[in-house]
Each structure stands twice: as structure tokens, then as C-alpha cells.
């Protein structure tokens, strides 16, 4: 594994290559790195033996281990899958930026490599300080990727917002690491075992949870997501949403491996926050007008679903209910993989739409399915999968989590039963809202007739852009129809947490093969009926005509439902929670001939407005008092340095420091 240390040297080639070759080289380099790391990951998964190697660096005398265990191996595979497709997708997408200079491109792809490399390192490094360094490289490189379109002020604003929030997270993580190091004197992850066995678990866990939770996007730490995802180029949004935010989940899972006591409280905290994240994410997504912002809110929802699985699993571990633990963790971790598949696919197909129409406004689009049938199918399948509907992969993970709930209905205590009932309720609500949201997104963007953007010039994406997307599509279908192939791995991963001596065989947990049979049954019936339809259609008159307008024949595209009107009945009822803002000047009575007016609605995040803006405002008020120091005069600054020097000298003379 030592070869990993040398890999970064290859990334400097980006600064030498001409602009048009960079995206190809990037794809090549990504495949090399991914193939190499996947090889080790597969070896770990197939043999079950943890690979460890010490690299010739150290932190304060503590050695740095590169370790791939089962958990790391799984996350490495997920990262590689999404990043490879992202790198392939970038080839056509980046050719859209004709005005960008060579240096812009070099810096972009250089950061792309470092994002991949740092994510792999985050999964492998077992020295906490080195881990923090990798974590920091991940944040900074993704920041540079986000601000690629840096000529737009809103992109820079979103980028800075992202960078600041990441550092609040990093600060919490650093505090947690220092606490552990102070108490145990070790920097290895396993030092957590020592710490957790001797101290209260909840405090340190919360530090880690919030630190990782900011990256993952749990509510109320989610406010960077809806800004950063629309700002970034689409392949970056896909990678960030597909895998980078999962590094937060990886961190939480890693810490949970070592937790010792107060497990029930920890489980309940995770479960409650996840339920809130899930509902708030999808509930806000519905009323978004920006397609990528909508998808960003769905990332929050899916992080919520993953967290629901993990929280349920933790409750299972705490109550010594192995079945519940395995179903919860298994479903949650499987959803990590599933979400990385369908969310990156959704972003990529949105990117194809953006390349052709140059807008992300849902209400301006329409009728794209006739011009981009492949992209439409890809988006449709991903939409169905993200709603958790059979026969695609999202259903499998939600089905496993639901089974966890049903299981705990039977075997838990009264209080937990009620908690689980409400969690189940919210998972159902999340599913229903997701269906509402994606029927809107797919229906308005791809179906009907074109709205404001005319589709004459729209072309289907190139084959090398569709190819990685079809790869993801195949994975979605395989997991959806034959989940038995991989669920064993997830039950094994979940088994890391149960600490039980007996390992429950996978087929007694759930009869996964019956999902396959059910999916096949459904597909079989559909095919049969479709054949019947074809046979019945023979010798019949099949005509084309205008849409039935209920006797009104002046059909224009303006008559169609829009995304806003589709969501109106929902938004009307949820007005208080959604914090919607309307910009509209009503027509006064004396204005007999009304002027042209604009009507604009948007939803602001409640947490951002009511919580963070207030904290920031009061901090600013306080810090403004110190502003007198900053005079802008060079003489004053030299004086400050001089005073500091004198002070230091005096303190040294009197042996204070």
C-alpha cells in the first residue's frame, strides 16, 4: 500500500498538460487510483482480514497507519464508483467552459484528484491527527472545486459559506481529538475504546457527531448544502452529494464502533435528529425552483434516512436486540451505497439538461423527453429509486429499515415501541413527500411541452457522457432486483456493531430472495401486459391528436401546470414551516392601469434565518467593538508589533514565559 504515498506526484502533471487533454488525463488518473484502492478493498472484503501498513511519517512520534478494514473497504468502493463516473461525466461537461483559462482547468482537476485522494485517505488513516489533515485537504479541495465558476458573485459567496462551515466542523473534531489525546496519550482510533470505557460517552460523541454532522448535512447543520451544490459544476455536485457528505457518515460510524456506554441515548439522539433531517429535507425540497437546490435538499433527506437506519441499529445494540441492530445498521449502510448511486445519477442527468438549456429553473423547462430520451430515462429511474419504490435499489434499503421498525414493534419496550412507531411514520411521510417531489421534478422538466426555454437546439448528451450514467443505472437495477448478491456484505458490516458471539445467518434475518421474486413477478406481469397491449393494437386505428382541453382548443404551453402550481396545495398548508417569502407589490385601487409587475417566491431555511443569522449578528455586534484596533494606518500596525515585542521581552526577563 506504500504506493499510495507516491500517487500525488502524478497530479502535478495537470499544470503541464494542454487544456483539452486535461479531462482525459483526469479520467485516466482517477481510474488508476480507483483501481488500485479498489483492489485492496476487494481483498479485504473477500478475505475478511484487515490490511495494515505503517508509512514512514509520524505525528509527534506517533506512527501513521494506513489500515483498510471492512468499514473502510466498503466506503473506498463507494467513493471509487462515484468518482470514476464523475470523472467520465466531466469530459463533456467541462468542454462547456470555453472561456476558462488553462490554469483554471489545471487547478480544477488538480483539486479533483486531491478530493479523491483525501477521501480515500480519510477512510484509511488510523492516526487521528493525520486524519484531520486529510479531512482538511478534503474540505479545501472541494472548496476550490465548488468555486470553479468564480466570476459569479453568488458562487464565491456559497463557496466561502461552505469553507467557513467546514472549519467550524473541523474545530469541533480537533477539540475531540485533543480531548482523547490528553486522556489516553494515543492518536490511534482505537484510543477511543480506552477513552469511552473510562468516561461519559455522550459528551465526546456529541463533539464528533456535530463535527461530522456538518459535513454530512444533518439538520440544523445543513445550511451549506443548498448553497454549495447549485454553485458547483454538476459533476462536482454529484461527487459531493454522492460520496463526500458520506465521509461524515463514515466518521460517525467509525466513532460508534468504539462507543461503550449510554448507547441507548446515543441511538435516540441520532434517530431523532435523523427523523427531523429527513422530513425537513424533503419537505423543503418540494417547493424549490432550482433543480440542483432541490436535489441538495434531497441529500439532506437521504442523510436522514441513513441516520434513521444507524440510530435504529444503535438502539438495537443498546437493548441487546441483535436482529434490530443488524436490520438498522444494514439498511442504513446499504442506503449509503444506494444514495451515492441514484443521487449522482440525478445530478449527472441534471448536468446534461444544464449543458443544453443553461438553466436550472424547473419552471422554465419542459418537454425535454422528446429531445433527450436517454437522459429522461436515466432521470426517471433515479427518481423512482430515490423515492424508495420497487423494483429499484432505494426500496431495498428502506425495506430493511422498515423491517427493523416492524421487528422492534414486536420485541422492544413500550417507550421504544412508541418512538419506533413515530420513526416509521416519518419514514412513510418522507417516502410520500419524495414521490410528490420527484413526480414534480420529472414531470415538469421532461414532460409536457417546452415552457420558456425552447428545445429546438437541445441535443442528447454524447455517448461517453451517457455511458457512465448507464453504468450507474445498471447498478441500481441489479441491487433492486437481486439484492441478495450484496446484502450479505451489509449484514456483515452491521455485525461489526452487535458485539454478539453468535452471528445470525443472513437468510434468517430477512428473506431477501423474496424481494427478487417479487421484483421479477412485477416485471414479468408488466412485460406480459405490454405484449397484450401490442397484440390488441394490431389492426386498430392509432391516431394522434391534440391534448383534450375540455372543449377549449387554444392550447398553449402557458396553460400547463408548473412546478409552483403543482406544489401549491402542499405549500399552502405548510406555509408556516416552509418560511416562504413572496416578493410582490399588490395593485392599489388608484392604479387603474397596472404597471408590469414581478411575482417571486422563495423559501429560506428556517435554521439559517432563525438560528445562525441571529448568532452571527450578535457575534458581529460584539466583534465590532474591537474594530478600533484596525485603523488602516501602517504606522499603527508597526506599533502593535513593537508593543508585542517589548511585552515578550519583558515577560521573558521576568520568567513568566
Amino acid at each position: 500500500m506504500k504506493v499510495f504515498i507516491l500517487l500525488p506526484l502524478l497530479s502535478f502533471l495537470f499544470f503541464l498538460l494542454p487544456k483539452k487533454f486535461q479531462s482525459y488525463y483526469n479520467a485516466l488518473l482517477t481510474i488508476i487510483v480507483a483501481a488500485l484502492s479498489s483492489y485492496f478493498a476487494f481483498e479485504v472484503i473477500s478475505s475478511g482480514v484487515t490490511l495494515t501498513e505503517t508509512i514512514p511519517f509520524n505525528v509527534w512520534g506517533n506512527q501513521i497507519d494506513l489500515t483498510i478494514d471492512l468499514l473502510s473497504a466498503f466506503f473506498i468502493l463507494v467513493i471509487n464508483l462515484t468518482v470514476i463516473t464523475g470523472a467520465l461525466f466531466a469530459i463533456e461537461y467541462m468542454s462547456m467552459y470555453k472561456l476558462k483559462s488553462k490554469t483554471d482547468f489545471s487547478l480544477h482537476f488538480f483539486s479533483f484528484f486531491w478530493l479523491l485522494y483525501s477521501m480515500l485517505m480519510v477512510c484509511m488513516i488510523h492516526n487521528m491527527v493525520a486524519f484531520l489533515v486529510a479531512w482538511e485537504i478534503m474540505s479545501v479541495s472541494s472548496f476550490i472545486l465548488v468555486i470553479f465558476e468564480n466570476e459569479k458573485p453568488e458562487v464565491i459567496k456559497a463557496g466561502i459559506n461552505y469553507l467557513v462551515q467546514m472549519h467550524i466542523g473541523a474545530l469541533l473534531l480537533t477539540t475531540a481529538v485533543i480531548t482523547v489525546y490528553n486522556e489516553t496519550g494515543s492518536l490511534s482510533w482505537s484510543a477511543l475504546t480506552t477513552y469511552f470505557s473510562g468516561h461519559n460517552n455522550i459528551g465526546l460523541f456529541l463533539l464528533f457527531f456535530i463535527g461530522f454532522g456538518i459535513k454530512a448535512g444533518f439538520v440544523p447543520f445543513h445550511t451549506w448544502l443548498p448553497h454549495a451544490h447549485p454553485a458547483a459544476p454538476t459533476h462536482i455536485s454529484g461527487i459531493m452529494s454522492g460520496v463526500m457528505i458520506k465521509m461524515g457518515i463514515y466518521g460517525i460510524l467509525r466513532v460508534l464502533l468504539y462507543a461503550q456506554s449510554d448507547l441507548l441515548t446515543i441511538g435516540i439522539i441520532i434517530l431523532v435528529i435523523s427523523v427531523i433531517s429527513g422530513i425537513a429535507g424533503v419537505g423543503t425540497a418540494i417547493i424549490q425552483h432550482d433543480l440542483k437546490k432541490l436535489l441538495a435538499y434531497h441529500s439532506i433527506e437521504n442523510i436522514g434516512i441513513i441516520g434513521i437506519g444507524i440510530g435504529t441499529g444503535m438502539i438495537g445494540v443498546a437493548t441487546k436486540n441483535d436482529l434490530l441492530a443488524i436490520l438498522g445498521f444494514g439498511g442504513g449502510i446499504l442506503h449509503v451505497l444506494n444514495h451515492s448511486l441514484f443521487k449522482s445519477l440525478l445530478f449527472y442527468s441534471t448536468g446534461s439538461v444544464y449543458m443544453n438549456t443553461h438553466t436550472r429553473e424547473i419552471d422554465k423547462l419542459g418537454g425535454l423527453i422528446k429531445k433527450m430520451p436517454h437522459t429522461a430515462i436515466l432521470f426517471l429511474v433515479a427518481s423512482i429509486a430515490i423515492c424508495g419504490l420497487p423494483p429499484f435499489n432505494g426500496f431495498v434499503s428502506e425495506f430493511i429499515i422498515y423491517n427493523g421498525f416492524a421487528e422492534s414493534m414486536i420485541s422492544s419496550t413500550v417507550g421504544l415501541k412508541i418512538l419506533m412507531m413515530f420513526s416509521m411514520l416519518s419514514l412513510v411521510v418522507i417516502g410520500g413527500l419524495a414521490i410528490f417531489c420527484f413526480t414534480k421534478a420529472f414531470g415538469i422538466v421532461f414532460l409536457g411541452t417546452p415552457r420558456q426555454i425552447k428545445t429546438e437546439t437541445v441535443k442528447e448528451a454524447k455517448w461517453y457522457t451517457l455511458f457512465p450514467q448507464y453504468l450507474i443505472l445498471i447498478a441500481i437495477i441489479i441491487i433492486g432486483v437481486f439484492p441478495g448478491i450484496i446484502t450479505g456484505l451489509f449484514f456483515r458490516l452491521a455485525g461489526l456493531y452487535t458485539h454478539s458471539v453468535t452471528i445470525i445467518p443472513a437468510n434468517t434475518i430477512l428473506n431477501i430472495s423474496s424481494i427478487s421474486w417479487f421484483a421479477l413477478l412485477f416485471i414479468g406481469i408488466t412485460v406480459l401486459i405490454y405484449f397484450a397491449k401490442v397484440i390488441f393494437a394490431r389492426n386498430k386505428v392509432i391516431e394522434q391528436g391534440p391534448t383534450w382541453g375540455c372543449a377549449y382548443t387554444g392550447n398553449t404551453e402557458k396553460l400547463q401546470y408548473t412546478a409552483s402550481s403543482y406544489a401549491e396545495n402542499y405549500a399552502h398548508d405548510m406555509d408556516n414551516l416552509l418560511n416562504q417569502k413572496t416578493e410582490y407589490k399588490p395593485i392599489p385601487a388608484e392604479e387603474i392601469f397596472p404597471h408590469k409587475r414581478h411575482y417571486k417566491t422563495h423559501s429560506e431555511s428556517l435554521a439559517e434565518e432563525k438560528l445562525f443569522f441571529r448568532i452571527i449578528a450578535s457575534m458581529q455586534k460584539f466583534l465590532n467593538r474591537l474594530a478600533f484596533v484596525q485603523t488602516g494606518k501602517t504606522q499603527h500596525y508597526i506599533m502593535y508589533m513593537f508593543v508585542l515585542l517589548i511585552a515578550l521581552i519583558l515577560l521573558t526577563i521576568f520568567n513568566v514565559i
Partner: protein
Amino acid sequence: MKATGIIMILLVSLVFPGIIVRVKSIASGRKGPGLFQPMLDILRLLKKGSVYSSTTSFIFKIAPVIYFSTILSAAFLLPFDNQPGLLSFKGDFIAFSYVLALGKFFMIIAALDTGSAFEGMGASREALYSMLVEPAFFVLMASFAMFTGHTSFYEIYNSIYFGSYIAVFAGILASYNLFQIIMVENSRLPYDDPKTHLELTMIHEVMVLDNSGFDLALINFASSLKFVVYGTLISNFFFTPDISIFLGILIFLGIQVLFAIVVGIAESFRARYKLRNNNKAIVLLTPISILIFLSILMIITHQS
């Protein structure tokens, strides 16, 4: 024989809408059409060609097929006469509900595919109402799972019993709630009126304005099938253990006919809700389900 259930469901769905129509016409003092008239209409539709809007894409053409096949595959999960369905597994009620949601998904996007304002309106309402009703069904099934200690339809129905007074109370509430859920899911009164004459107030019917020929036949048959599938959820409560297959079929037929008559009578004597009130009425089903859940929780903790 495991396939008895699916055959009986298909057979009953041939006459089910006929019974409802007949009951409604008798209640309003008319003679009414024969029991098989809705099926004869479907047969006639099958013989016709179709007209497709030039706005629509392939989504519009496959949606009715998928809609029908989701309901048929959901029917395969249902037990019949103390026997499991052709497919029975832990948590099959989740698959049942989710596969039906897939059908709705396709009907909704097919409605949006036509680019019609009316169908968009229907799609939006259908999406909202089916989202609001889903939790009620899940909490109800979770309550049964907790009550019986099992998580598949077959095991739940096989081991359900109504011993105490609270259980009877919960049973009554449950059947009321299940009935309301069925009325929402099938777009019937008081939530939606399939016989309404104004497109602006329709929900389900307005979504299929553009369908014709084979597609419309499929959708109509699917609606009837969906009713019977949900009716089977009720009739399964009445299969006592150790009854012969013939008695089982008789009970099934009796309950389904009774169910159709009740639907017909209920629809004859009440008006539909105002559309704005629909949301509140449907949301209210979930608290009722939670009430059932809590009362069953009381029974369980009392017993143990």
C-alpha cells in the same frame, strides 16, 4: 391451493363495480344497469383503437400497463383462506404499499405528460392525497404486527384474535379507518367523486381524460381490481382457522359483496368534501391509526 386467492380476486373484480353501481341506482330509485355492465364497457374499450395526444411521450403509453401490473402484483401478496399468498415474506405489507405507490407515480407523471392544465391539477391532488393517507395504513399495519408478533400479511391474519373489550374497540376503529383509507386510495366519496361532471373538481378521473382504448380499459379494470384487493384486506379478518376451501370462498364472496353494498350505500347518502377540506380529513386518519396503535399497546402491556 395457493392460487385460489388471486383467481377469486380477479373473478370478483369483474362484478364489483357493477354491484356498487346497482346499489347506487336502487338507492336513488332507478332500475340501473346489469351487474356486468362496467365489464362490458371495458370489453368494448378493448375492441377500440386509441388516440394519443401529440404532446405525450412513451411514458403516457406505458403508464397504464405499469399501473395495472402494480395492482396485480400487489394482489399476489395477499393471503386467502388461511393460506399464504403466492409470495409471502416478512414485511410484505411494505412491498404491498410501495408497489401500489409505484403505480400512482406512473399515473401522475402520465397525467403531467399530456401538458393539460386539468390533468396537472389532478396529478397534484393525487400526489398530495396519496402522500397524506400512506402513514395511516402503515401505522395500522404496525399495530397489527405488534398485536400478533408477526410482520407478514399471512402470519398477521393467521394469528389475529379479538379477545378483550379494548381489542374489540380497536377492531372497530381499525375497520373504520381501513374503510376510509380504501375510499381515499380508490378515489371514492367523500374524498373524490368518480361520477362528477366538472373537471375542476375531479381528482382521479381528471388524470385519465386523455386515455382511450386499451389504456382506458386497463385503467378501469385496475380501479376495480384495486377495490377488491383492498376488500381482501378486510375479508381476511373473517377466515376462522380450519374452514374448508368452499366455506372460505363463500365467506370471501359474501364479504366482498357486502363491502360493495356498503360502499354503494355510503356513496348514495353523502356528498363529497370541499377540496380544501380533503387535506384535513385525510390527515385525520393518521391520528386515528395512532389511537389504534396506542390502545393495542395498552392491551399488550396489560397482558404481559
